[in-house]
């Protein structure tokens, strides 16, 4: 079985803090990690490797420093790592990103493609299903449990109010939830291999076959018009009024802040 796991290197948003004076993000010193949903997807792939001898390729699109995420994946036990990087990919939205990743995956053999449900820096949950569409594959998203019966995958696909147990044949794409498992640590031998034995393959635009107009900022249907922080925190007001007036004040304030 050949598995491709798409991972993303993200800033650890639980470590991101706002500057209380300016209301802007403090990015310095924020560590980069493998996106949690992706890491559980990688763990699921490695479990299939342990049990069925699957071959696991990790693929990421990003700047050169995303190599660190691939090294970690190799040290956890992945067999092959590919960094897809090119200035032509800069500014990609989810459509262009998925198109680029799908083009890279077309160069690989696969029975199963795994992507994390969503990245913690963007939270869109779009790239996985969009890759599936570009490759014309069946998709199952929000997967919390995976079993393989020798020919098909049996997946627990969760919803807000329960779950479906679904069976899907090869090849297919799934998106995984971090609740699925507890990813293993890198092993000492794994770390050794990741730096000494295994190589990271770097692929550029010339290594994939894709229409140039679909890439990067130009190929992206969505554009960021502006981004802003919600502003610095100011001392809150305290009201001593009767309960009806109080209720009005609260509702008005929540509306003003776009909370309701």
């Amino acid at each position: 079985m050949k598995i491709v796991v798409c991972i993303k290197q993200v800033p650890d948003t639980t470590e991101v803090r706002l500057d209380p004076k300016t209301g802007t993000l403090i990015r310095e010193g924020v560590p980069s990690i493998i996106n949690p949903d992706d890491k559980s997807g990688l763990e699921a792939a490695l479990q299939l490797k342990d049990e069925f001898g699957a071959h696991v390729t990790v693929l990421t699109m990003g700047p050169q420093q995303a190599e660190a995420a691939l090294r970690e994946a190799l040290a956890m036990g992945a067999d092959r790592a590919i960094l897809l990087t090119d200035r032509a990919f800069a500014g990609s939205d989810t459509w262009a990103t998925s198109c680029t990743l799908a083009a890279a995956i077309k160069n690989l053999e696969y029975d199963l493609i795994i992507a994390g449900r969503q990245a913690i820096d963007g939270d869109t949950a779009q790239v996985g299903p969009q890759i599936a569409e570009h490759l014309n594959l069946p998709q199952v998203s929000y997967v919390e449990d995976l079993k393989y019966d020798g020919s098909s995958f049996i997946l627990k696909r969760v919803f807000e109010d329960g779950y479906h147990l679904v069976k899907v044949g090869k090849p297919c794409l799934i998106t995984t939830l971090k609740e699925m498992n507890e990813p293993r640590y890198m092993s000492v031998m794994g770390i050794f291999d990741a730096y000494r034995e295994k190589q990271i393959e770097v692929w550029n635009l010339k290594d994939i076959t894709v229409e140039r107009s679909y890439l990067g900022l130009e190929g992206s249907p969505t554009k960021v018009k502006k981004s802003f922080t919600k502003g610095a925190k100011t001392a809150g007001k305290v009201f001593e009024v009767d309960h009806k007036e109080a209720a009005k004040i609260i509702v008005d304030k929540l509306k003003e802040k776009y909370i309701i």
Partner: protein
Amino acid sequence: MNMMDYTGVSVFIEQRDGEVQKVSLELLGEGRRLADKLNTKLIAILLGHNVANIAQELVYYGADEVILAEDAMLDKYVTEPYTKVFTSIITEIKPEIVLMGATAIGRDLAPRVSARVYTGLTADCTTLEIDEETKNLLMTRPAFGGNIMATIICPEHRPQMSTVRPGVMLVGERDTERKGSIIKHQAQLDASDMNVEILEVVKETKKKVKIEDANVLISGGRGLGKKESFEGLELLAKELSGLVAGSRAAVDAGWIDRDFQVGQTGKTVRPGLYIACGISGAIQHVAGMEESEFIVAINKNATAPIFEFADLGIVGDVNKVIPALIEELKSKK
């Protein structure tokens, strides 16, 4: 693509077992507002099996047109049959805007559709507006765990697609006098479209909820005085699509389960809205919630330390303010 060919605001109606999900009614409310601004029509797109009885309701909630596609393969949500039928509908009717709930279904269907028709999709929007000049949809969403807001546009592709978080938009008034047309769409599916097999469907009415994941938390403390007061918090939480949590004092008193405790010995939370009800604001509690985006404190003691951390403070009897607040929220819907 001729952008002028695309008119109308459309909403994907999410139904589960024939029950319209609340987020779809919220989107009809919001879609109505946008359609009026654009001086165009609001179209509800309903997919399912034996769901025709719902269609009229969608008109009452604001739709000018309901496109109804029924097929046995659309009974339970499966990506491909839904994508195929939904895509064929929007390709035919060419709406300028498509709205879907940011649910476990909407967030699976929307990206698949957007990839198929090559258009932009913005996830989990919390505010939608129309640009006065260009008439483009301005889609605002949080990123970086809610630390940054971004306004996204889709200027050169149509339809402009957006998923919207449940509980953000307001349901419009149900008006049984409202008139609208119901149009049947032939779902052209064949067996090969069912590319996954559902083996089992499991309903979990009491799904495990985590206060760490909630965007709205209503938290109760000693000042509530009695266990029964937590029922009021539950009602308020329902109104705001949030969860109820508590301080250590409330947990120790047995008013709420330890899984829902906020503070140093409990959970650290960062919701968009935290309403502290009868919580004095001991430092151990504050450590678990001070990074909430907007904090409202209600406490009868004007010198309670919680007011120092609150964005909005109310000095008063929490057991009176909460019912008044629920009433006020209901009247505004």
